[in-house]
C-alpha cells in the first residue's frame, strides 16, 4: 500500500514584508507548508512500520520541482508533480481537481494525507474536495493514525473532544500540526533527494476540464491598519496608571 502526501508550495511567510499595508511577495523564497511537513512525517512513520512507498504530490509552478526536494530528503520515496504556471495561486477547486486526477494515476493508494490547512491560506478545503472527487471517506484534524489491513483507526481532535473513527481504506486524512515532530534530514539525505524518482506532468497531460469552475474574486488584500499608541512606559507603576486611565483594570 502506498501513501500519498499532498504538499503545497507557499511563500516563506517569515519573509513577507508589508509596505503601505500591501504584502510584498517579490523575491520571497518558496517553501513547503509547515503542517504539510507533519503530514509527510506521519506518512514516513507509517511506511517504516508496514512498508509501501511514500509519494509526495504537489501541483504548482515550475519552482515546485526544486521546493519538493525538501520532502524527498525528509523521507518521501518519490515525487509526483503537476507543474504549470497557471497553477500558481490557483484556488481550492482547481487544485483539488488536479490533485484528484493525479492520485488516480498513482497505483495502490491506501492513504492520502494533507496538513490541516496550508500555511498561507489555511482554508483547509482541498483535502475535503479531493475526498469528494475520489468518493472516499475522510477524517480531518487527526492526532493519530493507525493502519490495520484494510482499515485505519483515526483519532481526530475536535473542539469538544476526541473522536475515534474506524475507516475503510483508501481514506483521505488531514493531520494536526502537533501530530508529530518532523525529522530534519541529514546532509546525505539532502544530497540523495535530487536522485529520487520524479514523475512530472503538465496540466494538459491530465484529462480534466478546468473551465466553468466557481471563482474566488479578491476585492482587496491588505494588512490591517494598526493605530496602536506604542507608548513606552518606564515602570510597572506607570503601566498600572495607564491601564487604570484606560479603564481596563
Amino acid at each position, binding site marked *: 500500500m502506498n501513501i500519498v502526501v499532498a504538499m503545497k508550495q507557499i511563500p516563506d511567510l517569515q519573509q513577507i514584508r*508589508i509596505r503601505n499595508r500591501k504584502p510584498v511577495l517579490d523575491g520571497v523564497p518558496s517553501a513547503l507548508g509547515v503542517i504539510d511537513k507533519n503530514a509527510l512525517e506521519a506518512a514516513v512513520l507509517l511506511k517504516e512500520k508496514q512498508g509501501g512507498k511514500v509519494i509526495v504530490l504537489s501541483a504548482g509552478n515550475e519552482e515546485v520541482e526544486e521546493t519538493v526536494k525538501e520532502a524527498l530528503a525528509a523521507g518521501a520515496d518519490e515525487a509526483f508533480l503537476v507543474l504549470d504556471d497557471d497553477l500558481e495561486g490557483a484556488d481550492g477547486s482547481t487544485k483539488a481537481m488536479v490533485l484528484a486526477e493525479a492520485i488516480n494515476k498513482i497505483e495502490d493508494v491506501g492513504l492520502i494525507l494533507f496538513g490541516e490547512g496550508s500555511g498561507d491560506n489555511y482554508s483547509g478545503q482541498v483535502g475535503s474536495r479531493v475526498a469528494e472527487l475520489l468518493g472516499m*471517506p475522510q477524517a480531518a484534524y487527526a492526532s493519530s493514525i493507525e493502519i490495520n489491513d484494510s482499515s485505519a483507526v483515526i483519532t481526530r481532535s475536535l473542539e469538544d473532544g476526541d473522536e475515534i473513527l474506524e475507516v475503510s481504506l483508501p481514506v483521505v486524512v488531514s493531520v494536526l500540526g502537533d501530530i508529530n515532530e518532523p525529522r530534519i534530514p541529514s546532509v546525505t539525505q539532502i544530497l540523495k533527494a535530487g536522485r529520487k524518482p520524479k514523475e512530472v506532468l503538465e496540466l494538459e497531460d491530465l484529462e480534466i476540464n478546468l473551465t466553468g469552475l466557481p471563482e474566488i474574486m479578491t476585492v482587496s488584500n491588505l494588512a490591517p491598519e494598526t493605530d496602536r499608541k506604542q507608548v513606552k512606559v518606564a515602570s510597572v507603576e506607570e503601566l498600572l496608571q495607564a491601564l487604570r486611565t484606560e479603564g481596563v483594570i
Partner: protein
Amino acid sequence: MAGVLVYSANQGLALELITAARKIEDFVVAVSLNDDSLAQALAAAGVRTFKISNPNLVVGDTGAAAAAIKQVLDKENIDTVLLSSDRRGKELAGRLAQAIGAGCLTDVTAIQVDGSKIECQRNALGGATIAVQYIEGPKVMALRPRSYEAAGAGNGSIEELAAEIKDTGIKVIDFKPKAADRVNIEAAEILVAVGQGLSDEEKLADVQALASKLGGEVACSKPVATDKKWLSEERVIGLSGKKCKPQLALLLGISGQVQFTVGIRDARVIAAVNTDENAAINYMADYIIQADLHDVIEELNEKL
C-alpha cells in the same frame, strides 16, 4: 439565488449562522442531521428547518453529511450555504462545496452584501493580511464562531425529510469529551498571555495568580502549548488557536509573529512586556515595558 441554507452540528453556532444568513436574504432554511433538539432550536429561531433522520448518517462522516445537505439544496434550489468554521464545519465546507460545484471560503470573520456579491473578510498569508473576497457561482462560506450574535426567537417550522445515505465506510468507535475544566479565553475580558520568554513551567503559578488578580484568564502563544506543553491548547491565541477580543491583553515575553498577533489584534488595549526593544509586538502594543517579564509579574502581583 433563492435563499440561504445554514447548517452547523453545534446549536449555538447554527443560531449565529441564522443571523448572518438574514443579512444576505430573508429566506433562510436550516438543516438538522439526526438531532431533534437542534431542529427544535432552529425552528424556534424562526427558520424553516429540514430534519433529516437516518440511521446510516453517522456524525463524523463528512461525506454523508454533505450528501444529506445536498439533497435539501437540490430540493429547494438553493446555492448559497453558510456553515460554521469550527473543525467539523470547516471539514464539511470543502466536501459540500465540491459536491455542489461551489466555491468555498472558510474562516470568514464578517460578510458584507454588495449587490449580488457576498463579500467575505478572512485572514490571508498566514494572518499578515485581511482579504476581502467573494465567490462567483454557487457558494459555501464557513463563518468563524462568535462572528455574529445568535438569532432570537421566531416562528419557524420543522419538516421531516427522508434523505438517501450510502454507507461510506466510516464508524465512530468512541468519543472522549475533553476534560471538564475547560477555559474559554475568547470570552475573557482580560487575558494574560505568556510566550517563550517565560523561563520555566513553575513560573506559571505567578502568571495564574496575576490573571486571577486582574479577573482574567491565562493564555499563551502556540509554542508554549504545543512544544513545551506547559498549557493546554485551548489557551492558544493565534491563527491556529483562538481569536480573542479582550478589553485588555497583557502580553508577557511574546515576540509578536503574525501567526500570534492575528489572534489578539482586536483587543481594545494591548500591553507588552519584552526585553527586546525591537520586538515586533511593540508595534502593535499600546503600552510597552522593556523589562524582564518575571520581574514585572512579581511587581504586578505585589501591587495589585
